[in-house]
């Protein structure tokens, strides 16, 4: 992980954070739909210093067969961090943390995808984190949703995600690695903007009820910013421009 500086100021008196952002300002986000030829759908996201590639396959045959469901298709998600994605080499074997994040992302996508049209099939989502800098689960969820749309999987809505948090007793948007390590709370939020529904909400840290409400509001507003970029990425690939 990036070196923790004991003298680092997370939030200065002018409301500027350690990387120069304002309290409600997300990092630079770039999303690209497509890019992988052999996958049915794919997406690449740069979320600050996070770099994540997602490939989607399916609907396709389920192997092993006993996992298949005769009523509906199933969604399988693998979140994986490359050995070179963090400062110190990460063992490529799936860790406890990666298994948890895979499950969390799967459950955050499930309300959006409509797999009941494809019984006895599976949709596989492969998430590869090439470079990590805090907030990978949100970035991965955002990219996975674009990749699923690119694959043509029917979806009720896109899922956009971003983290809100608390540092220096202030509610902030888009927690980076330093703020995650030294901050007081981290709350990743996944949100379906058109249906106005939350599909992912985790919280690590302690918040008062007021701060909690504020955090959710800040996170949901942040998701709407991310959603616009998802929309732009898909429009660019399919309609050749940023808007209609």
């Amino acid at each position: 992980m990036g070196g923790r500086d004991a003298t680092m100021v997370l939030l200065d008196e002018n409301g500027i954070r350690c990387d120069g952002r304002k309290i409600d300002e997300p990092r630079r986000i770039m999303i690209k739909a497509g890019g992988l030829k052999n996958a049915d759908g794919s997406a690449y996201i740069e979320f600050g210093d996070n770099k994540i590639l997602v490939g989607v396959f399916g609907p396709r045959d389920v192997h092993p067969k006993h996992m298949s469901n005769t009523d509906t298709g199933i969604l399988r998600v693998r979140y994986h961090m490359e050995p070179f994605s963090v400062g110190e080499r990460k063992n490529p074997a799936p860790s406890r943390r990666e298994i948890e994040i895979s499950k969390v992302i799967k459950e955050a996508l499930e309300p959006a995808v409509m797999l009941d049209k494809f019984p006895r099939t599976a949709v596989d989502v492969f998430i590869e984190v090439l470079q990590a800098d805090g907030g990978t689960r949100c970035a991965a969820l955002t990219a996975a949703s674009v990749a699923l749309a690119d694959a043509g999987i029917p979806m009720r809505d896109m899922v956009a995600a971003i983290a809100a948090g608390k540092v220096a007793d202030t509610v902030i948007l888009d927690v980076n690695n330093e703020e995650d390590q030294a901050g007081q709370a981290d709350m990743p939020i996944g949100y379906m903007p058109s249906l106005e529904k939350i599909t992912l909400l985790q919280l690590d840290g302690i918040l008062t009820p007021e701060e909690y409400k504020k955090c959710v509001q800040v996170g949901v507003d942040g998701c709407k910013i991310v959603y616009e970029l998802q929309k732009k990425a898909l429009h660019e690939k399919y309609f050749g421009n940023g808007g209609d």
Partner: protein
Amino acid sequence: MDNKRKYVIPGDVVTTGPFRPEQNVILEGNKIISTTIGISEIYDDSVKVIPLTGKYIPKINDLVIGKVISHTSLSWELDINSCYVGFLPAQDVFGRDFSAHADELATKLKSGDLVAARIANFDRTRDPLVTISDRDLGKIDSGDLIKISPSKVPRLIGKRGTMIQTIEMATDAAITIGQNGWVVVSCESPEGLLKAKKAIEMVDEKAHVANLTDQVKEMLESRGES
């Protein structure tokens, strides 16, 4: 809603009001929401989205091109470029007096053979049942297979078949389009075959471009002179 057609992505509200949701849209409250990337079309009483991406989902009566994967003593299995395999019973080929002992399936269709087939029956509980007992169906003996995205098949056919007619006229090729995105082209002259293939690939790549028929026509004619 003033304009009838627009570009949509999943979650976009196509329209609100008393419309019947058709393909690729869902009704959520009184909003009609697109479930896929595509072009929305609003008719007098219904709304649909024409998808621009996605796998082939079998529909009854669709003409598809299938490739024989394997057979049992009673049926063939066809790869129809979908998440399900096509099921072709032996009776369909041998007739009703088919006998599993007397008739050998491999004599009619071997694995790797291409067939033009029609989806006879499909529901969510079983794999699609296909048939080749109809006019123009059956084993394809000659021609080149081209794979395009199934969502671009309507574009290749064009409005009332204009696109495919343009290609066929200019190249003298016979083109069979399967709804599953597999296309078989056969032509007497090798140049015609090459040109037709090129045109089909062009449609696949530039499906979203307006006036594509004219562009294809131009391409076909310019190549003809050189």
